[in-house]
């Protein structure tokens, strides 16, 4: 389908663009112009820094031979010395040095505290939120266990429910704000405010019913959270978009294929099936696996609907993910028979991506790449609806608190999400993608001034570039003090529901020992919601969960193992019992020349994700110095760790690293 080709066709066109053969004598002409004294000393690098910019094993050693012998000897010695003694300063050198000052593990949960509005009046939150943590918790509670505190992410709990904010008509987004008392303190000055951002629906009302068969790679190459987690996140979102006429089926494959979910329309069945799915640790796709997967998918199809097979794979270059010929033939056959086939690479490494693209073009299907949760959700939503889902790009949200009214505020959740600034950096300067039919809710706990002098509490702002346009637009919504209720009775049902959900999340997070009374209070308040939402199944489910929490046993690895370890793959961060990543090998960052000339120094704060193999495979900038970030990131990317352990198994871990750049004179 043309609409969700996402550049595959264009890439082929670009690559196909033909060029004539070079003239036969061209090589000779070029060679005749090679200067007699290639790389002569007169052209030697003017910067001694070059020699030190590279580890000795690479280019610098060879380069230096050609350049000055004296500089070489000095630089090699200095380079070796600085590498061998990275903690000690290279005293007496004229050039600047970069040094890794400290590293601290991010382990467990660090709730964000209150921020003074007079000091920092502007706050922000990420738009890429999935309800993964809530779903994980549900799995634990169903097994009679409290979830490990680190598995609880408040913002994911809050966004697991729909608060009834209607989708806008005639415009792209609707911004809303409301407030009420805080569930976290008796103090009447403390309030809770709820902001919601709802985008218009882009699901065409007259589209055909769709049957989607997902053929999902669960081999080792999909590696837990990193890739399979992305698939799951996107499917959780898809579950909400299903119409009564749509159907979804899941087939997983590694060395063998099996039906995880027969065709169904029940979103709950889909989410339940997603828990059961875990990487099985066996080797990557074999011919029988894929072949069976496709044949099973074939059976799911209904005549008169829009039928699609979606292959979800990914993998790292070290795993040999070879797609077998019989599978290719079958896909090609199916695509001729009116079944659409699509291939999605989830965080596929470049090598694997090329392979998947080749697979897609060989079978006349489309290829899409999903590197982030938002991208994955967008691709699946487009597959379901057959319509482009993006309504804007480069989106970012900010909340501007009025210090005249608000003395302090705190954002609930988002402890583990990179700051919007860091996201902005890692996305190459862009913000988030704004998808149609999305609803994002964020809660702040605020403390009002004793004598507010103005009416405006805060302003919610959204900045984005509407699809197909080059200019950025900004929408704002002011929250007035009159909209912030002072009692529960005066607060709206949606605020009460959100408050209850947030309270549930924070209670779970703060009470790993399971103090029954804390959960009892939460449960009683949640029960009141059933009056407001008598018809909502998900609300009833939430209240039941709150009740289950009051009776659940505390989490321990042994108990989790005995309960069949519910949903461990969906836990995004390693939790409690285990060890954190330990640094094994470290590389000094090079001091960027431009920064040195510009006399730019300071500390870059990074958060690194350490893979179960001990590699740093994701770096986000927590505190940025633009001229220095790239050098810090590229150094940290090469570090080696002993991976974090959870219950004896290597898992993904996180560390915060401060990289200090100092200028010496």
């Amino acid at each position, binding site marked *: 389908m043309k609409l969700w080709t996402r550049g595959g066709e264009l890439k082929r066109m670009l690559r196909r663009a033909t*060029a004539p053969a070079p003239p036969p004598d061209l090589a000779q002409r070029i060679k005749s112009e090679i200067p007699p*004294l290639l790389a002569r000393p007169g052209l030697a690098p003017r910067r001694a820094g070059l020699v030190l910019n590279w580890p000795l094993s690479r280019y610098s050693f060879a380069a230096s031979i050609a350049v000055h012998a004296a500089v070489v000897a000095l630089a090699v010695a200095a380079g070796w010395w600085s590498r061998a003694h990275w903690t000690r300063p290279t005293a007496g050198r004229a050039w600047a040095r970069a040094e890794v000052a400290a590293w601290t593990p991010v382990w467990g949960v660090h709730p964000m505290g209150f921020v003074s509005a007079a000091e920092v009046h502007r706050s922000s939150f990420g738009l890429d939120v999935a309800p993964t943590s809530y779903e994980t918790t549900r799995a634990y509670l169903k097994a009679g266990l409290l979830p490990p505190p680190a598995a609880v992410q408040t913002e994911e709990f809050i966004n697991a429910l729909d608060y009834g904010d209607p989708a806008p008509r005639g415009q792209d987004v609707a911004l809303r704000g409301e407030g009420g008392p805080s569930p976290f303190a008796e103090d009447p000055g403390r309030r809770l405010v709820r902001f919601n951002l709802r985008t218009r629906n882009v699901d065409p009302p007259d589209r055909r019913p769709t049957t989607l068969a997902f053929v999902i790679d669960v081999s080792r190459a999909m590696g837990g959270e990193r890739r399979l987690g992305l698939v799951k996140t996107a499917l959780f979102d898809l579950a909400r978009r299903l119409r009564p006429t749509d159907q979804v089926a899941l087939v997983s494959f590694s060395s063998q294929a099996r039906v995880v979910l027969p065709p169904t329309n029940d979103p709950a069945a889909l989410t339940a099936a997603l828990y059961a799915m875990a990487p099985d640790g066996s080797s990557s796709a074999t011919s029988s696996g894929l072949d069976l997967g496709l044949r099973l998918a074939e059976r799911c199809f209904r005549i008169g609907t829009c039928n699609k097979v979606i292959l979800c794979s990914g993998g790292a270059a070290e795993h040999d993910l070879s797609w077998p010929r019989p599978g290719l033939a079958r896909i090609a056959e199916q695509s001729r028979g009116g079944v659409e086939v699509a291939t999605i690479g989830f965080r596929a490494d470049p090598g694997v991506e090329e392979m998947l693209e080749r697979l897609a073009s060989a079978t006349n299907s489309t290829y899409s790449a999903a590197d982030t949760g938002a991208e994955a959700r967008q691709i699946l939503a487009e597959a379901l609806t057959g319509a482009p889902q993006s309504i804007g790009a480069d989106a970012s949200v900010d909340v501007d608190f009025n210090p005249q009214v608000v003395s302090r505020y705190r954002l609930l959740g988002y402890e583990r999400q990179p700051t919007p600034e860091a996201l902005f950096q890692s996305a190459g300067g862009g913000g988030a993608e704004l998808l149609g039919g999305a609803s994002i809710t964020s809660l702040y706990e605020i403390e009002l001034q004793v004598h507010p002098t103005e009416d405006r509490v805060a302003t919610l702002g959204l900045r984005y570039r509407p699809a197909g346009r080059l200019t950025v637009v900004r929408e704002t919504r002011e929250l007035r003090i009159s909209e912030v209720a002072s009692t529960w009775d005066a607060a709206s049902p949606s605020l009460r529901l959100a408050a209850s959900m947030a309270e549930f999340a924070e209670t779970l997070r703060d009470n790993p020992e399971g103090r029954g009374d804390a959960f009892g209070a939460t449960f009683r308040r949640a029960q009141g919601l059933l009056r407001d939402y008598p018809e909502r199944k998900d609300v009833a489910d939430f209240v039941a969960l709150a009740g289950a929490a009051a009776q659940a046993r505390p989490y321990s690895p042994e108990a989790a193992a005995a309960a069949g370890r519910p949903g461990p793959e969906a836990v995004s961060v390693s939790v409690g019992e285990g060890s954190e990543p330990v640094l094994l090998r470290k590389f000094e960052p090079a001091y960027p020349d431009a920064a040195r000339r510009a006399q730019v120094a300071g500390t870059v704060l990074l958060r690194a994700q350490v893979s179960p193999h001990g590699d740093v495979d994701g770096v986000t900038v927590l505190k940025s110095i633009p001229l220095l970030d790239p050098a810090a990131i590229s150094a940290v990317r090469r570090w080696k760790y002993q991976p974090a352990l959870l219950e004896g198994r290597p898992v993904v871990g996180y560390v915060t690293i401060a990289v200090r750049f100092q200028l010496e004179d």
Partner: protein
Amino acid sequence: MPDTAAEERLLAALLAGDRQAAETLVDRTYAMVFRLLCQLCQGDDALAADLTQETYRRAWTALPHFEGRSSLGTWLCRIAYNAFFDHTRRRHEESDDFDRAAALPANDALDPVDGLIRDETTARLRRAVLALPEDLRFLVVARFWGDAPVRDLARLDGVSQVAIRKRLRRALARLAASLGEQRS
């Protein structure tokens, strides 16, 4: 993807002033450089050949400053790309990049049959690529016409591979949009 060890040996030899190494480099890369320039020059082979020569002339001068941030191939892509735009700049001092590039004589000098074979899509695609903003344009040229690996482009810009692929995707989306516009 070129063998890294072999490339390092080649670079070491080059920096040591080994003429043989320079010839090897030319043999390995000149067809790629020529192809890339052909795309930029819209099939003006003679100009592309001249610019290929110019690219290597510049490469020899710049070699001692080569920092090894990318492979030699990607480095040559960048030089060729700059050579092309410098050339067009000389010819049309006052107009901007896009006009300059688009103002190049298209296919007049070519054999008419040749022109027919090269379909119109290529020309439109080329115009669309040249109309991209500077940062995206080089990425597209290097990635698709110069076959530069994403890893190299990432190192050249000092950003992550994901960021590069994201930019490439953004560039492709723009290309698709502008091609759509031209069509309608």
